[in-house]
């Protein structure tokens, strides 16, 4: 579970939880999307390796949704993360 002080929750799907030591929710005390992404790069290098390409962009086979909206579609003015925000990683899965 996330620490109490955390303002933003990152939701990690089971398919990627091996990269986070089996944590499916990680709390971050951050207030913007860019701060969050920096913290992920710093604190969760294995997960970051899966999420970001070498040029720093999010890979084409994974998505990050900020309160339900694709992070790629957020305009500059929309990159604040109000307390309680949920950022969801949506991975490519193919099972049927």
């Amino acid at each position: 579970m996330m620490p109490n002080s955390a303002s933003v929750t990152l939701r990690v799907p089971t398919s990627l939880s091996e990269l986070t030591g089996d944590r499916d929710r990680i709390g971050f005390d951050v207030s913007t999307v860019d701060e969050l992404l920096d913290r992920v790069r710093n604190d969760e290098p294995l997960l970051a390796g899966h999420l970001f390409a070498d040029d720093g962009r999010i890979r084409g086979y994974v998505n990050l949704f900020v309160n339900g909206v694709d992070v790629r579609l957020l305009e500059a003015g929309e990159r604040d993360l109000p307390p309680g925000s949920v950022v969801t990683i949506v991975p490519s899965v193919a099972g049927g």
Partner: protein
Amino acid sequence: MGLTPEETLRYHRQIILPQVGPEGQTRLKESSVLLVGAGGLGSPVALYLAAAGVGRLGIADGDVVELSNLQRQVLHDTPSVGRSKTESAHQRIGRVNPDVAVVEYPVRLDSSNALEIMEGWDVVVDGSDNFPTRYLVNDACVLLGIPFVYGAIFRFEGQVSVFGRGDGPCYRCLFRDPPPPEAVPTCAEAGVLGVLPGLVGTIQATEALKLLLDKGDSLAGRLLLVDTLPMEFREVEVRRDPDCAVCGDDPSVTALIDYEQFCGGTTTPLAAAPELQRVPEIDVEELRSRLGSGQSPVILDVRETHEWRISNLGPYGAKLVPLGRLQEIVGELDPDRELVVYCRSGYRSAIAVQQLASVGFDRAINLRGGINEWARRIDPSLPTY
């Protein structure tokens, strides 16, 4: 084509819904749905659409029923083990509702047959179990203008949406690129909760019926995430991407492509061999004893950069050359020196060894089990993935 008295009785509970009525039921009777995959997801979809009175069901699946399928593929039963899935599905649907016409396609969809098989259906339901087929279904549906109900599962989690409908997004708008091979394990490798495809498949069947009846708000433009461990249903917004390769404003994909190649990342001419021959191998113990013995081999890592960051043999001089770039640097390698090639688990590196052998590297050998085996047996401080 109206409803017979028997049909009126069979579908009574559905006909009395004001959103269906005799008109809606007649509409279902005149409609057709193609199921891609008669596995975990296709099972509940086939059963419920047949029971609901959809007039024609197509089933495309090239597999046979295996005992290990029955834990989740409720369309098939124990006596069907060893029979083709389309035949087993056909027989079962016939017992559920003999009025449904079933068309069997006992083949795996590929670029050569997909348009012919998929053309003319009102709705397609994607219950396939691999990335090449998923991109193929998407592209074919967009090219043919057929909406399709997407569903995918992994372990305890599922995803559902409707793609290719009107101005809505497609699968490529959500996932521009397929993951590299080995980055995502299959259900066979990772396991799946048996009831999960039941949950996700019945949502797909619901969406298919809504599309056929033109009722309610479809999941087009929304991706529903189903997570069974906390038992949560969440949704995220999916928009059409104007730069999408197939449904964008200026599409680059205007005909079906080679999806195995698209998803395999093995696009260099060196990687043509479809079947992997046995290649020379070295065990991790053997490699360790050779390191620092004065006859250290050159070590080549053929994974991707992000995998290198997870674990690598850099301390022993390993050099990172992703498989797709092997051809470019092959001239820099010495064919007379022993060359040990590794990847995550030994599959990509076997391809690399085969490619190297074909251009004269007689001393290239594959590290059996890859870096994960090294991590397990030699250096437990390295993570496995």
